[in-house]
């Protein structure tokens, strides 16, 4: 694939993700200026990128959406669920195109017709108003905030947020005191007030009608100001002012630069003149150079790209818009920060091919092996009692420390925020919610929690499964909810956080909870678990049966879920990466599915056990205790074996037998057991001997061994031998 196209695909997906998040946020808060700006920028940049790869159909489709947002920014139209739906549909189409391009490297075949359909959809929603009837956005930033700031130069860098508050005329009747609200703003620096409409002569002035528009500057953040205004917020326009000094690079333009840029726009306006192409090229170059001179290289690049688009398409529109955007002093579209907080971090990030990071990770793994070999050598030297041993041990400790550091920072490079896995979920929930006619909202917490790239990428599918289950089986329909006194709109919480070496992700709903009796019944009907075991199961254990293969309690198979392939697939993909999934449910109150995942996939703490003279590793996370008991305390139950420990019956698996090393194992008077807990279930592994504990770099089995049952992966030991690390979940099944 051509390098441009590859870059285009990566970037476009990022912008789509940003735009989707912004649109969904706008649906909840149509007045959110920041989100609107951000969505606009994302669409604008998408359009620009499409131009670079000569994808005119995509440019057109995205332009239609951009127009809608542009008009909203100018206050010419409101953001409605319909317009949001249109914009999302546009993104859907773009995603399909990108997917097609990913496969072929070529522009999709029927894009023109599909693009036309998108454009027509926007036209229909606009009530027959042709798209693009409104010209390209001008400088959209309202000037009141800047004017207010300009009035008092001494405030300088302290100013952070500007607010414009237009109280309702009859607010005095409601006991409201608008200026008192302003007075209470945190970090208030300056205020101004103007009559909303010209003052009537004093004799005719209605003293009970508020005729003021109040503006103010504060040193507090936008959100603090918004919180302080409380229920008056809908009457407010709040703008966060980005200060030059604080950002260093200088977002606001010096007057001369501004003048030059504005002149280029004027130049571009003169179309149809002889030599127009040369004029466009020079305008673009001048604008890019001005911005580059100011250190705004991202903006300059944006303009250079727009220039390429313009020259290819013979339409000055995109160049004009790019210059406009630079003039509007918004952060550059490439950064497209979702909140002001990341505005400063995005510039520090570097896009590196994941394969290079993986190579580093792999090298670090080799280094760890080499380090362990020195450890082994030190031990040998100690046994032969030479003076070298002390030295070796000392050096080994240093190396151990350094390699550990290196490993942590290398693994840290593979870390991504979970936001990437979460990003598409609100959108999908919105769809499920309308398909099932069950109103629901998704509350996301801790999306910035970080985890290894492999974990983040794996997590999306399982989360989607769980979300579907929650909507399909968990959340009741509106009438049932009403009858139970629950709010009509269901709440699904997606919560992530770091717990020590683990990342925990929870999906909880406020639905009906899992019907345990029905689960027991289904388990019996389908012969999944023997009858006596079902009866002996606690409710929690019974609930856990939803993770068994072929288990589905839905009475009706819907398009969403209920085909019985859900939860066991979830468990499989999670455990493949060393994670666990558990479920908690309270009848009538809802269900919580909890994923406990390792922070990094690579490092696993294992305990070495021996069976039939072979060593195996057991993930230490799963080990509850180790103990020696009289062998005759292990009692046969049917074909299996079990032991009673602390009033709990625990199934016993002989490791040698389970791995096919021996048929029956040698009879011994004493048995060494490793008690483990996997997915909430206890099990004991009978081994010959228990060895050391170590931290290893786990490599998944590949090639011929890939399908080997009961083995999670392998690692190299210090003496060069291979240690197989067991997958306990599979062993106990």
């Amino acid at each position, binding site marked *: 694939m051509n390098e441009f196209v590859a870059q285009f695909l990566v970037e476009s997906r990022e912008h789509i993700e940003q735009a989707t998040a912004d649109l969904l946020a706008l649906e909840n808060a149509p007045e959110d200026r920041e989100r609107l700006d951000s969505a606009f920028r994302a669409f604008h940049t998408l359009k620009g990128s499409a131009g670079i790869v000569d994808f005119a159909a995509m440019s057109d489709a995205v332009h239609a959406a951009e127009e809608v947002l542009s008009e909203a920014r100018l206050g010419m139209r409101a953001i409605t669920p319909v317009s949001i739906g249109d914009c999302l549909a546009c993104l859907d189409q773009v995603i399909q195109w990108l997917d097609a391009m990913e496969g072929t490297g070529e522009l999709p075949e029927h894009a023109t017709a599909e693009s036309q359909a998108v454009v027509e959809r926007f036209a229909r929603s606009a009530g027959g108003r042709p798209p693009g009837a409104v010209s390209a956005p001008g400088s959209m930033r309202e000037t009141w905030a800047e004017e207010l700031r300009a009035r008092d130069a001494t405030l300088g860098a302290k100013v952070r947020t500007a607010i414009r508050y237009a*109280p309702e005329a009859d607010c*005095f009747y409601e*006991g409201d*005191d*608008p*200026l*008192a609200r302003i*007075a209470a703003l945190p970090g*208030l620096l*300056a*205020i*101004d*007030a*103007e*009559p*909303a*409409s*010209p*003052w*009537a002569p*004093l*004799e005719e*002035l209605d*003293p*009970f009608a*508020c*005729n*003021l*528009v109040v503006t103010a500057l504060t040193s507090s953040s936008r959100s603090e100001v918004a919180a302080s205004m409380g229920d008056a917020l809908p009457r407010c326009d709040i703008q966060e002012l980005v200060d030059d000094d604080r950002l260093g690079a200088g977002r606001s333009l010096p007057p001369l630069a501004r003048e030059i840029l504005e002149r280029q726009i004027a130049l571009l306006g003169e179309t149809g003149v002889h030599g127009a192409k040369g004029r466009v090229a020079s305008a673009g170059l001048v604008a890019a150079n001005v911005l580059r001179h100011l250190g705004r290289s991202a903006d300059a690049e944006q303009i250079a790209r727009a220039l390429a688009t313009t020259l290819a398409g013979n339409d000055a529109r995109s160049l004009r818009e790019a210059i406009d955007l630079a003039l509007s002093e918004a952060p550059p579209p490439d950064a497209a920060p979702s909140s002001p907080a990341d505005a400063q971090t995005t510039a520090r990030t570097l896009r590196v091919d994941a394969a290079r990071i993986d190579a580093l990770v792999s090298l670090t793994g080799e280094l760890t092996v080499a380090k362990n070999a020195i450890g082994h050598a030190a031990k040998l030297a100690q046994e032969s009692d030479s003076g070298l041993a002390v030295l070796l041990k000392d050096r080994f400790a240093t190396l151990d420390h350094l390699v550990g550091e290196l490993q942590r920072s290398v693994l840290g490079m593979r870390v991504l925020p979970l936001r990437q896995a979460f990003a598409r979920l609100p959108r999908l929930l919105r769809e499920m919610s309308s398909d099932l006619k069950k109103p629901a909202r998704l509350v996301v917490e801790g999306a910035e929690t970080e985890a290894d790239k492999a974990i983040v990428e794996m997590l999306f599918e399982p989360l989607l499964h769980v979300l579907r289950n929650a909507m399909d089986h968990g959340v009741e329909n509106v009438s049932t909810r009403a009858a139970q006194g629950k709010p009509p709109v269901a709440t699904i919480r997606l919560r992530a956080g770091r717990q020590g070496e683990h990342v925990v992700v929870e999906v909880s709903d406020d639905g009906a909870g899992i019907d345990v009796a029905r689960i027991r019944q289904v388990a019996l009907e389908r012969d999944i678990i023997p009858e006596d075991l079902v009866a002996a199961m606690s409710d929690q254990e019974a609930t856990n049966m939803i993770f068994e293969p072929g288990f589905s309690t839905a009475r009706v198979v819907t398009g969403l879920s209920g085909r019985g392939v859900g939860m066991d697939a979830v468990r499989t993909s999670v455990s493949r990466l060393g994670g666990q999934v558990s479920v908690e449910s309270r009848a009538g109150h809802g269900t919580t599915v909890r994923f406990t995942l390792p922070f990094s996939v690579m490092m696993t703490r294992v305990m070495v056990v021996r069976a039939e003279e072979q060593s195996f590793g057991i993930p230490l996370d799963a080990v509850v205790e180790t103990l020696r008991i009289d062998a005759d305390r292990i009692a046969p139950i049917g074909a299996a074996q079990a032991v009673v420990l602390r009033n709990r019956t625990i199934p016993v698996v002989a490791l040698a037998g389970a791995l096919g090393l021996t048929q029956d194992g040698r009879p011994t008077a004493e048995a060494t057991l490793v008690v483990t807990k996997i997915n909430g279930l206890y099990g004991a592994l009978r081994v010959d001997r228990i060895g050391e504990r170590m931290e290893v770099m786990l490599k998944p089995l590949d090639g011929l061994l890939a399908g080997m049952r009961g083995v999670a992966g392998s690692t190299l030991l210090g003496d060069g031998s291979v240690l197989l690390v067991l997958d306990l979940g599979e062993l106990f099944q």
Partner: protein
Amino acid sequence: MTVRVVSDGTIELAGVCPNEDAERLQQHLIADPQARVDWRSCIAAHTSVIQILLAATPVLHGPPAGEFLRDHIAPLMQRHGCESAGSNPPAVD
């Protein structure tokens, strides 16, 4: 009484002036458009009261007692009074 006319015709605002004071202040200012307003003992005033002052732009005798009035409203009054030179302040663009 937080709004009253003292001996020399000066209108005095004192303490915390509630919403209802706006109408009284307005009546006093209509009765004597040249009256000075003394707000030195005014701690706070409802928006409606400040609105009357903004509309009528009387000569103010200050500074007011309240911090918000002194730091923010007094400069605002001055701006409006000076800029409009006794007439009504200009409307918002």
